[in-house]
């Protein structure tokens, strides 16, 4: 999904349909789901990839959430998307939010935080993506399922 190249190459990296299963029982308020992605730089950079290349900077450009079950967005107040890694020197970053969710929405386009510094989180390639869904009511039976689509702008050196 690379879009352009050059010195200090900038590439777009898009993830579609990343699935989040929020396992019940769920309580009114925030509930979290997490997923893992592995960014393969050789795949992102393509033919110009060289050993030793690394992600020096990353910015979230767009993010959206769609329902992945028949409940849709029923009783969902808000979504927050965060990124984290196992690197002990790097802190989790909130990167996008939708609050409040408009009534009747079938896809939620999140407001991204361009200042969120994601480069160090992405550096190791293995990234945890966390979706927080703020629920208005308890859900004692069953799970809630959502899909996240997002696009990152990666600077690769």
């Amino acid at each position: 999904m690379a879009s352009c190249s050059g010195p200090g190459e900038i590439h777009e990296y898009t993830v579609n349909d990343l699935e989040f299963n929020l396992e019940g029982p769920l309580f009114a308020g925030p509930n979290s789901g997490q997923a893992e992605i592995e960014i393969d730089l050789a795949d992102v950079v393509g033919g110009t990839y060289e050993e030793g290349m690394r992600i020096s900077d990353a910015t979230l450009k767009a993010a959206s959430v769609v329902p992945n079950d028949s409940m849709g967005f029923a009783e969902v107040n808000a979504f927050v998307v965060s990124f984290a890694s196992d690197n002990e020197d790097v802190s989790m970053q909130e990167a996008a939010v939708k609050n409040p969710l408009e009534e009747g929405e079938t896809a939620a386009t999140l407001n991204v935080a361009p200042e969120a510094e994601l480069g160090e989180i992405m550096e190791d390639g293995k990234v945890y993506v966390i979706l927080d869904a703020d629920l208005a009511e308890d859900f004692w039976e069953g799970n809630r399922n959502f899909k996240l689509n997002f696009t990152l702008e990666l600077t690769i050196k």
Partner: protein
Amino acid sequence: MLRKLTFLAVSAVIAFGTLSFDLQQESENPGDRLVGIWEPSNGRSRIKVDRIGNKYYGRVVWLIEPNDADGNPRTDINNPNPDLRNVPLRGFRMCKDFVYQGDDTWSEGTLYDPNNGSTYSGTIKMRDDNTLDMRGYIGVEAIGRTDVWKRLKMPSKKKK
């Protein structure tokens, strides 16, 4: 008599098996004892701690005052990043990136105070299974403040 001895032997095997399983689980992620719902000393919020990867994070899951003066859900209005001031405070991850160091201690994390938008370095020391010393500091750990958090017991069934 033989039946009684057999029963005792089977019971012992089951008990030992359970113990081994518990010990194995604990040794896999000994830091998971931090997972649960905790209440700071002022009783104004409750924090749920989860593990993501090899780190521990705490989210606000309950606030004594969930709404602002206008009746709207409180948001993180003091966040230094203006783009994130609309993030709901209920659900906000105020403890981040704690790593279990052994000896009932989690460190390398940060504590966020939504009252002023400040982030502090943090260390968590578990006094016992239900009591934490949460220490926040800037720069030197010796100069900081410690708050005592108590574990909240969750009801196992929905109240009708």
